């Protein structure tokens, strides 16, 4: 899943270790999320959204472009 985590982290001038410390995860986890190799759980995604003060859908993009999100 694509996401804006690397950009948001850079805007705050945080290293992966600093972000990992705040999220209580390892640098490998931050790196795996940033590179799209690992999709975070819903609780971790909410934690990331709260940390950056943005809605989840602004940070994570499920690349669903074929229709509306309400199933219509």
């Amino acid at each position, binding site marked *: 899943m694509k996401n804006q985590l*690397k*950009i948001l982290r*850079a*805007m705050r*001038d*945080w*290293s*992966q*270790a600093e972000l*990992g*410390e705040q999220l*209580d*995860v*390892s*640098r*490998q*986890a*931050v*790196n*795996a*999320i940033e*590179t799209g190799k*690992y999709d*975070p*759980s819903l609780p*971790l995604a909410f934690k990331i959204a709260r940390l950056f003060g943005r809605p989840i859908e602004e940070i994570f993009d499920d690349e669903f472009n074929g229709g509306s999100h309400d199933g219509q």
Partner: protein
Amino acid sequence: MNLTEAAMTDNDGMGQSHGRRIMWIILASLGIVMLAGAIMGFLSERRAQGDGPLGTGGILVMLVFVALIASLAFSIWVNGRKIKSSGEPLTKKERLNRNILIGSISIGAAFGIFFVATGTLSTSSSTAVVFEGATLQPALALFLAFVWGVAMPAFSWFWHKRVIDEQEASASRDGGYYAAYAFLVGTPTWWVLWRGGLAPEPNGVAIFMLFSLIWSAVWLWKKYC
């Protein structure tokens, strides 16, 4: 270059490159443990055969073992220095995880070397002890059963609940899936091939080791690559 790109730190992607270095350190550490076991096995065989003088072939074998161990130790030192010099600090969980890993490998290696060196496990060679189910002293069997059956699960529970994060838990689960499928596919295949006279008799220890190896390899791959 826009503002956000310009704001990215020099350490971007550091986690990935550190990951590979850490994985290499882990693999090199395991390699040292296995080579140490091979040396002890070699010496045990010699002891079982009467401890004659170490011939040219024996000296060469030992030199190769020592050179390999020295190479792996050097690579651990080099990778460790690169990680340290990058200035990227470990998170608290990473530090705890690293210390647990180093402690586990050190204790396991120390016990293994002690048991084989002192002949505590058995009078047979180390290879026979592992793969052929050679007899153990009852007190030692109880001790090892306690370590594996009680201490290890308790420690694993702590590791899963308190040490690792969800990405590593996911990597560990993936390793378990791969290992379980390898077991489900491989064991009956080996068994029927043995019944058909086309393969040696299935060995429980070998199956256990392959299961563990696949689990660990996938876990490391998913965590660091």
